[in-house]
């Protein structure tokens, strides 16, 4: 489905990702690892927000390395930001329709907003600005990805910036998404409960893949060795 071949990414003074080779075919793959290990960079490379210094990105057999963000989005890649973007004036409804497509019925949009635990009537006409809390923005960010129902959905630490109580609800959202979504899901997370619903786990460390295996093989070992990994990159 998604293949990364010899991906390297470096800035002027720092190597962030080193020779990454990956084949992602499973329905739900979690990426974890210490802060600064390159997880968010990996997601941005797949979404096209940054371009690799070396290597190729292949989606369903097609080389998409040189494609723009827009072209990749139209080929079926969705990306949920770790820090959702605020827009003055654009409403939840505006963004949901941009995500789902103009032909979508309002009732479907309302349904998706309810799925992420928000009351559609209260939120549809709210502006995505400073009047919404971090947790509310995060849910809407996730709702936008649901609405796109893409071939590949990337989530960059959906738990970041959400309080524990909201996070419990979010887990149910993801559990439901795993059951309902046909496309592949790649999620960057530090949370055991998210890793626990993954088919496979990628463990990144110092810009390299240290482990990539089924949840059953990798999670117990990780839980023993990895501690204090909360926070973003």
């Amino acid at each position, binding site marked *: 489905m998604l293949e990364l071949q010899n991906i390297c990414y470096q800035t002027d003074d720092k190597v962030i990702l080193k020779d990454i080779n990956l084949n992602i075919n499973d329905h739900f793959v979690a990426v974890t690892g210490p802060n600064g290990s390159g997880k968010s960079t990996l997601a941005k490379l797949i979404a096209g*927000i940054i371009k690799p210094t070396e290597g190729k990105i292949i989606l369903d057999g097609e080389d998409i390395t040189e494609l723009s*963000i*827009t072209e990749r989005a139209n080929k079926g890649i*969705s990306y949920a930001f770790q820090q959702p973007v605020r827009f*003055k004036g654009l409403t939840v409804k505006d*963004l949901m329709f*941009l995500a789902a497509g103009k032909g979508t019925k309002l009732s479907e949009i309302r349904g998706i907003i309810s799925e992420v635990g928000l009351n559609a009537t209260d939120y549809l006409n709210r502006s995505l600005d400073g009047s919404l809390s971090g947790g509310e923005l995060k849910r809407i960010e996730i709702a936008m990805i649901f609405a796109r129902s893409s071939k590949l959905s990337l989530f960059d630490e959906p738990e970041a910036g959400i309080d524990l109580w909201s996070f419990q609800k979010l887990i149910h959202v993801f559990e439901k998404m795993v059951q309902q979504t046909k496309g592949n899901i790649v999620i960057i997370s530090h949370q055991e409960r998210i890793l626990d619903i993954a088919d496979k786990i990628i463990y990144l460390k110092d810009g390299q893949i240290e482990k990539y295996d089924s949840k059953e093989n990798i999670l117990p070992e990780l839980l023993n060795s990895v501690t204090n990994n909360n926070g973003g990159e």
Partner: protein
Amino acid sequence: MDEIQKKMLYQVAELDSLPVGAYNIRANGKAAARNSTANIEIIPKNDKSGIDIKIKDNTKNESVHIPVIISETGLKELVYNDFFIGENCDVIIIAGCGIHNCGSADSAHDGIHTFFVGKNSKVRYFEKHYGEGEGRGKRLMNPTTVVHLDEGAQMKMETSQISGIDDTLRSTKADLAANSKLEINESVMTTGVQNAVSEFNAELNGENCSCNIVSRTVARDNSTQHFTSRLNGNSSCSGHSECDSIIMDHASVLATPELLANSTEASLIHEAAIGKIAGEQLIKLMTLGLTEQQAEEQIISGFLK
């Protein structure tokens, strides 16, 4: 009315037929249609160009449309419209001006709207300015709005000038009595070498009166904008003004908010922000499948909504 005038009428007042209620449609300097109702009387002025709009006490859920259309190149007019709104009313007033200029002479509409809003009345006022036409002649508009709010009166103004006006001086003056409330939302976009100046001046005189001014503007190409707002807090009152601008290309934007407190009980706040479209906003919309240009248009149209 010809097709151009009908199109302009739709642009400024969303009218494709005569509206319900009171109206005065002015086209090329003359009254094209007028209607008074039992509660709202429209009377042409004798001494100068314009109309008096008299709204009886306790008039509720009624509307007045007073659009102005200019399609004749070179026409310049100065119009005085005075609104006398009684007590305990709840009305909607829809104004607006459209200029279509396909000639080489400048066309101009200077409208001076004065509102006397009676005790405990509520007014919602919409004003949209629009220009078009391929001619070399400029499309000029200088709207002046003067608002006198009596005790407990409320006025909510939504004004917009999104395209086609070459030069504009928008002036809004208000005085507020006790417990009155004024809310103004302004949207302006300038392109090409257009220039827009917007001035607000509010005297917060009465106890517990409040004024909130929000101006959102987009300056593109080589256009220039200047926003000034002056809130004078003369009593126990609250005032807030916000000027938020997106600057693009080679445009220039000047924001000069001013506050004057003449009472220790006055609570006044101003905010002014000027900046380009945030890169992460463009990226977010591009991840939803929009091109960079489409993303930019979405952000601007949302911002000016």
